[in-house]
């Protein structure tokens, strides 16, 4: 086993990471999961470190998960959103970020609606940048917790058949998962309304399916993406109702899914659209475990990124 070490100051996306680095994060997360299971759910690892949660694009769950992770690591936390920052006064993102950095902030956790925003900041800032979602590009901690969950249940990633269903075109969760899973040797299939299924992914080795049945047939993992209501208006597909009947996991389509396949969803679930309640809460669902693992994964990422702050 190669003794690799962590040297990155930022976590911007799965695109930049090697398979070894991804495994390193997952192994680190294993230990942090244990911290969350014992009585004293806190370690002093980030004591004295200041983290700013800058959610330019709003979020409740990811933000809460990061906040809790930071608290468990004993970090000092500042929360900012687009409305509570000077962005609302017309200050540029770079100026806002530089002002934040001038407060001696060590880590910036940011979610932004523009793809590439983090890369732009990481180039111009000295503090560590963690990507909590940039536009349609990447959501690395989501992919990490998805893969952590799969690894925990299936004991491996290599060779597994993983199907991601939904609006792939606009999904950063899909992209991060695709890049990471391919690096770890999984077979990735994507499916959804054809207007939302970019053919270009075939070029990197992803299998495209035009129907749900074939997509989930041999799947060991079925990962359902949240369908956003705005897409409907933008004329990509006729209606939420149609989506649910053609691409949703329900009593009809569950027959095509293997009995031991995992059912995953990044949340929040549109019950009855991507997934019927009985399967969201059923035996195959690991959706709540994803949330638990998300906390451990984020603690691991914060810990690792802080290790290289002053290099």
């Amino acid at each position: 086993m190669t003794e690799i070490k962590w040297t990155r100051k930022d976590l911007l996306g799965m695109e930049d990471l090697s398979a070894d680095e991804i495994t390193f994060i997952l192994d680190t997360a294993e230990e942090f999961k244990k911290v969350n299971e014992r009585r004293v759910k806190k370690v002093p690892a980030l004591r004295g470190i200041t983290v700013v949660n800058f959610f330019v694009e709003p979020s409740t769950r990811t933000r809460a998960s990061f906040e809790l992770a930071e608290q468990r690591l004993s970090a000092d936390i500042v929360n900012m959103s687009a409305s509570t920052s000077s962005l609302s006064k017309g200050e540029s993102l770079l100026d806002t970020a530089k002002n934040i950095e001038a407060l001696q902030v060590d880590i910036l956790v940011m979610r932004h609606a523009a793809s590439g925003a983090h890369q732009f900041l990481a180039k111009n800032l000295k503090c560590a940048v963690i990507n909590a979602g940039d536009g349609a590009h990447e959501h690395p901690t989501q992919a990490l917790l998805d893969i952590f969950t799969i690894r925990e249940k299936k004991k491996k990633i290599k060779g597994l058949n993983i199907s991601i269903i939904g609006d792939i075109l606009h999904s950063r969760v899909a992209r991060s998962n695709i890049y990471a899973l391919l690096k770890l040797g999984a077979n990735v299939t994507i499916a959804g309304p054809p207007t939302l299924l970019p053919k270009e992914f075939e070029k990197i080795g992803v299998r495209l399916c035009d129907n749900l049945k074939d997509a989930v047939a041999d799947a060991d993992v079925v990962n359902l993406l949240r369908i956003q209501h705005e897409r409907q208006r933008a004329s990509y597909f006729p209606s939420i109702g149609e989506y649910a009947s053609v691409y949703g996991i329900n009593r009809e389509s569950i027959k095509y899914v293997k009995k031991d396949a995992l059912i995953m969803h990044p949340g929040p679930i549109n019950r009855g659209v991507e997934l019927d309640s009985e399967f969201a809460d059923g035996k195959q669902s690991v959706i709540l475990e994803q949330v638990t693992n998300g906390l451990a994964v984020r603690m691991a990422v914060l810990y690792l990124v802080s290790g290289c702050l002053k290099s």
Partner: protein
Amino acid sequence: MVTKKESSNYILQNARVIDPKNGVDAICDIGIENGLFADPSKISNPKKIDLKGMVIAPGFIDMHVHLREPGGKDKETIRTGTMAAAAGGFTTIVAMPNTNPLADNASTIEYIKTHCEESACVNVLPSGCISKGSEGVEMSPIGGLKKAGIVAVTDDGKCVQNHELMKHVLIYSKTFKIPVLDHCQDSFLAEGGLVAEGYWSTIKGLRGIPVASETIMVSRDIILAEAADWKVHIQHVSAGASVDMIRDAQKKKVKVTAEVTPHHIALTDECIKDYDTNFKMSPPLRSEEDRKKLIKGLQDGTISVIATDHAPHTSTDKLVEFAYAPFGVVGLETAVSICLTELYHKGFLSLSDLISKFTVGPAQVLGLDIGSIEMGKKADLTIFNPDVSYTIDADSFYSKSRNTPFNGKEVKGRVMGTVVSGRFVYSMIDGLKGSF
């Protein structure tokens, strides 16, 4: 348009003179007297300049330049923009009308002409908007604009979506002999798009602009130009499929011409992979297949013009998230070097063919008698050394803006002198000083 200053008489010796219109490609002398081309043997008191190793061509014409004045003076002014043109080897430029206020009325054209008289150091030909306010609803006063001095109409930046309006514009413009230049873009398909739709837009999670956005409007323009029997000129072609359509139309003698920018023949959409806004422009950089087809279009004459679409933006404007940065890159000061490097030195075009894209091509589209060297004509010349190598340095630009995709690029070929009406407005020639 050029400020009258003292001009000298010159004999430019020992250079290779290439004048595609007159079929000249030879080492010979060029005489300049009182700002006009003259017989070298008959000039009184000429300064003799030895230009051995250099190429002299008719003054280059860039028919797609955003001078930003009036209204955008932090990005560029008529003064700085024409200085950039001179440094880039251009003696004539066509100014785009999307200023603030828009050039959709005679008084704005008057304003531009007056300011050019005062501060421009190269010839500036104004263009007017196709539609009032560039809204794409009502035709602008094309007759009045022509009287005020425009050489073309365009809604550049935008595209008339209403085909009936475009049909009428073509018919109407024919009367005034004003060519119609079009920035071909379907606003629904292009809406919200940031880069070319393709592999890189998919991987990087950026909304893509499909080729169809351009080709649908190219075919619209071809159909209407054929019906009106008048000139439509496709600006900054980006897609190989557009070139194919234009070629077929030209075979049928439709009056459609096309231009391409230096950045579209040098770069592809892979350049956006680091979200660098210096590669964000409209139309976007496309695939390698498209790039190759654009070069083929230049080779077989389908594309007869190279134009920069010089679009200055301040660093404040460009140093933002990719989605929010304005489209556009500067191009005046890099065009000739990039084209020599990518088209001449790579063997795609001969020097004469390349030069024609900056001279004969644009002159034909505009219907103007410029872009050639003839006795008695205004002495506008572009002098360059095709073999000198250097590294492009944005900090040395005369333009106010620095948003170039070519900063740091090693190129081969450089403009050494620019002559406007017999005056060296720009010179890197030993012993010869240029003055803007």
